[in-house]
């Protein structure tokens, strides 16, 4: 299992997403996963090896590194990407369940006029309405929550998004306040800001998608209410005509009661 497999699974959800959802999937995989895999891993590869403290005291470097970097940036990003992608799996599971139910009804002979065969059911794009709308909207909501949570954790853990070139450390067993030097602080700051910006863009896309879905539902409801309010006289006329037809047919039957049916 690697990023490619996750891409295959999330790509499957792509078919049933809105246009904004498709843009989101592209941004996630190109500007975040790919950057993480091809660039960030190289930059953070030697992070502990090249973390140097101005002391020969054994253990001081380990302890200071652990204090300043409780979780490495790239691991936090990897977890963020995994958590942010998983709500899409809910949608994938819902679509799979819907297809299974449709296939079961098709086998029982219920939906023969809608689909030609079972392959047709699998190829059909499922519309985002009804319960799928709720699943899809919840997945977007959770995505936003996870993005915001991870961005906050990042800010809280590292005291901002900027990496200093020197840190002061006085934790036992360091003999006194020693200077510790991070490797490649500027390059790491550049990538951190890049990843945070991509995160913000993804969050904005999710918010836009959620608003779009809500507007679509409100628009659909108002259209339905409008069409019902345009045709009440028509319905009344139809009912009156039906009553008259029943009266005519009853009186007709009474008139020809003498003849055998």
């Amino acid at each position: 299992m690697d990023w490619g497999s996750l891409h295959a699974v999330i790509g499957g959800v792509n078919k049933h997403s809105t246009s904004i959802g498709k843009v989101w999937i592209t941004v996630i995989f190109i500007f975040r996963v790919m950057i993480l895999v091809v660039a960030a891993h190289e930059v953070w590869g030697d992070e502990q090896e090249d973390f140097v403290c101005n002391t020969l005291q054994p253990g001081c470097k380990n302890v200071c590194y652990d204090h300043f970097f409780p979780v490495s940036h790239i691991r936090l990003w990897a977890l963020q990407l995994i958590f942010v992608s998983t709500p899409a799996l809910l949608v994938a599971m819902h679509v799979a369940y819907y297809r299974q139910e449709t296939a079961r009804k098709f086998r029982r002979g219920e939906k023969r006029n809608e689909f030609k065969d079972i392959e047709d059911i699998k190829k059909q794009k499922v519309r985002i309405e009804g319960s799928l709308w709720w699943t899809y909207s919840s997945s977007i909501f959770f995505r936003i929550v996870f993005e915001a949570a991870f961005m906050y954790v990042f800010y809280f853990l590292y005291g901002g998004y900027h990496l200093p070139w020197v840190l002061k450390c006085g934790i036992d067993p360091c003999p006194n306040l020693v200077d510790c030097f991070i490797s490649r602080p500027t390059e790491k700051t550049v990538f951190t800001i890049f990843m945070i910006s991509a995160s913000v863009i993804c969050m904005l896309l999710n918010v836009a998608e959620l608003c779009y879905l809500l507007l679509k539902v409100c628009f659909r409801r108002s259209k339905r209410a409008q069409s019902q309010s345009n045709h009440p006289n028509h319905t009344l006329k139809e009912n009156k005509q039906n009553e008259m037809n029943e009266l005519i047919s009853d009186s007709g039957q009474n008139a020809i009661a003498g003849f055998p049916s």
Partner: protein
Amino acid sequence: MSWMFLRDLLSGVNKYSTGIGRIWLAVVFVFRLLVYMVAAEHVWKDEQKEFECNSRQPGCENVCFDNFFPISQTRLWALQLIMVSTPSLLVVLHVAYREGREKRHRKKLYVSPSTMDGGLWYTYLISLIVKTGFEIGFLVLFYKLYDGFSVPYLMKCDLKPCPNTVDCFISKPTEKTIFVLFLVITSCLCIVLNSTELSFLVFKCFIKC
């Protein structure tokens, strides 16, 4: 042979699973296998190189590291993933056996080879019980081997050839603790899913009878 092989093998299991079984598979793939491969493996990459003892005595670090980590947490995690995933293959084998039987006798012996009735129901149940057993077994092993689920930053070691009780410092203890806790939580989640599936299957059977 790599983790892709296990993934491909398990993808076949998806077809014959119940709904909860599919959720279990998704949890194993995404929260355990994927997290292990893209994050956890790298945390433990330089564990022995960065393990430092406050002594210049040659061999002291090696001996202390071996004493504190008889088997690396990351290798134990990998073993757990393999052992926990393989009972599902029993189901795949049983379905393949049924299909083979139908082919040999050249007639329909079952409603469908993958319908969960008769022997296949028992196989599925046994695979669930074995999976849960492995999960609990590995969690207990983890707890006993490392004295809990947290990784300390400092350990005292006085084994030969270390001259006295020396301080030994582990690299990235906080990050390792976070990932071990992640492992424990996902393991417990999988145990809950397996137990739910087990009760659901047994309950369904009682209702049918």
